[in-house]
Structures are given as C-alpha cells and as structure tokens.
C-alpha cells in the first residue's frame, strides 16, 4: 500500500505540473491543443494518488511483480509515443519552413523579372 505522504507528494506534484502548464498557456508559450496532453497526464497522476488501488489491482491482474513496475512501464511507453509523434511533427514543420523559404526565393525572382526599371 502506498504510504500517505507519498500520495500527498504525488498530488502536490501533479497540481504543481498543472499550475506550470496553465501558466505557459496564459503566457502564450504553448497552444491549448498541445497543453491538453499534459493536463490529462497530470489528472491521471492525481487519480492514481487518490485511488492507488486502481494501479495495484490492474498491475496484479496483468501479472506484474509490483505496481510501480507497471506504472513506470506505462509512463515510459506513453513518453516514447509522445516523443515519436513530436519527431513527426518536427519533420512536417521543417518541410513547411523549407517550402516557405523556397517560395519566397522564387517569388522574389518573379518580382525582379517583371519591372525592368529597377534603379
């Protein structure tokens, strides 16, 4: 059974994370649509701290030696997935930035070709 002070710590940690995320949203450093992931994650931590039996029963039923192993694995998988989707998003952003740069370069050429009377 999870000691009470650890559960309190977990709740406080999750609340702190929520505050940090909220502040970044307010300061317009992250889009709400991207902050949703972190808010949901923090909410899951709060739920786990309040009802630790959820994780314990689930871990036991799945055959894990201890609940913490199960929780670690779940979090690692979740974060790996997040990093991978981020990678994909960066790829697409890179492509878009390059595409824009190319179009700017080509558009400037067209501009120069049309009026013959520059200076």
């Amino acid at each position: 059974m999870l000691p009470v002070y650890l559960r309190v710590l977990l709740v406080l940690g999750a609340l702190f994370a929520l505050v940090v995320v909220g502040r970044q949203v307010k300061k317009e450093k992250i889009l709400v649509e991207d902050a949703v992931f972190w808010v949901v994650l923090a909410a899951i931590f709060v739920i786990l701290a309040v009802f630790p039996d959820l994780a314990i029963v689930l871990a036991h039923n799945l055959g894990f030696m201890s609940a913490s192993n199960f929780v670690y694995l779940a979090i690692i998988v979740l974060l790996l997935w997040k990093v991978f989707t981020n990678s994909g998003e960066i790829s697409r952003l890179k492509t878009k930035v390059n595409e824009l740069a190319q179009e700017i370069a080509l558009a400037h050429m067209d501009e120069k070709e049309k009026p013959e009377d520059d200076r």
Partner: protein
Amino acid sequence: MKILAVVPAYNEEECLEGTVSSLQNTCPEVDCLIVNDGSKDSTWDVVRRNGFNGACLPINTGLTSAFKTGMKYALRHDYDAVVQFDADGQHLPAYIPVMAHELEEQGAAMVIASRYLDGTVKPSGARGAGSRLITFLIKLTTGAKITDPTSGMRMYNREMIRLFSTAFDLAPEPDMVALVARRYGKVVEIQATMQERQGGESYLKLGNVIKYMSRTCLSILMSRFLR
C-alpha cells in the same frame, strides 16, 4: 532541349564566380540557376555583381531544399532537363552535353557522371569503401549497376523534375538513386573526370564520411521495404 543547371551554393564566395563563368563559356546553350542557400558570406553579392541568374533563400535550409528550389524553377519555366552542378568547381561543364545526349538517347530518368565507369580510376580511401558499399547495396536492392552513386553531378528528365518539385522526401543523394532505379526509370552513367574543389571547405570530412555512409546505407535498405 532546354537544359537548366542548378547550382546550390552555401558559403561559396571563393569559387562560385569561376565555376559559373566556365559553365556559361563552355555551354552557352545551358541556362544556369544559382540557389543561394542562406549563405553567411558574400555569395549573394557575387551572384548580383556578375548578373547571374539566382534565387536567394532567406534562411539556410540545406542542400535538399536548395535543390528543390531549382527543381521548382525548372518545372515552372518548362525545362526538359536539370543538371545538378556543384558550386565548388569539381564538376566539368563539358560533360553536360554528353549527359543530355545520353538522357535523350536512352530515355533515361537520370544520367550520372561517373568517375569509375570505365575502371581506369578506382574508388579509394574511406569514401571509396563507402562508395563500393553503396554500389553493392543498390545492386542488391534494385539490380541496377551504379559505379559512382556518390557523384554529385546528375542530370534529371522531366518526370524527375516534377517528382522532385512535389515529393515530401526526395534528396539529391545516393539513396535517391536507388529509389529512382527501382521505381521511376532507367539510371544511366557516363564516364567523366572531376576536379579537386577549387576553394572553400568540403562537407565530407573524415568524421562525417562514416555518418554519411551509414545513413545512406540504412536509408537504401529502409527505402527498399517502405517506399
């Protein structure tokens, strides 16, 4: 046949003028487009001072994107062929007409100027070993025999111009040669010699060679199954 030479240039102030002048003198019928890839030196000044035809990317975006700019230009101005031409003076313009002739004659998608086709020069050193490995992998995955896959002097036909302008992920690199040979058409080589670079710094320093070669080999293998 309307041919465009695309010359990507990143910090090439030292050799760009000589390269483009010799290109224009040797092949006056070939149009030239210099793509300044956000250079930090006076590359763009060289272009303007000489009245060269140039496009200027506002940021440094890398060779692939710079080359794509040239391909888009070629597509929009209705060119029949594009030749990828280094700014550092390695490539000899005299081979462009030979490549164009071969492109038409053989109905090829791409013609590569190969240093090793006739066997008088052998690939040597770390880059040579990498080059042989890539040749072997291309043979293995596509059946095509490409003696000089790392040669940067390549000519592309109309279909390839369209493909390069629109594709999400197509780089003017050896792994693309494998993809083209397998999916898009014939890849032909002609024998050519190349010069030492006339100035500036090469990207392919020894440390980078291993990185570059392993990336390329992996990419060829991945392409075989995923693309």
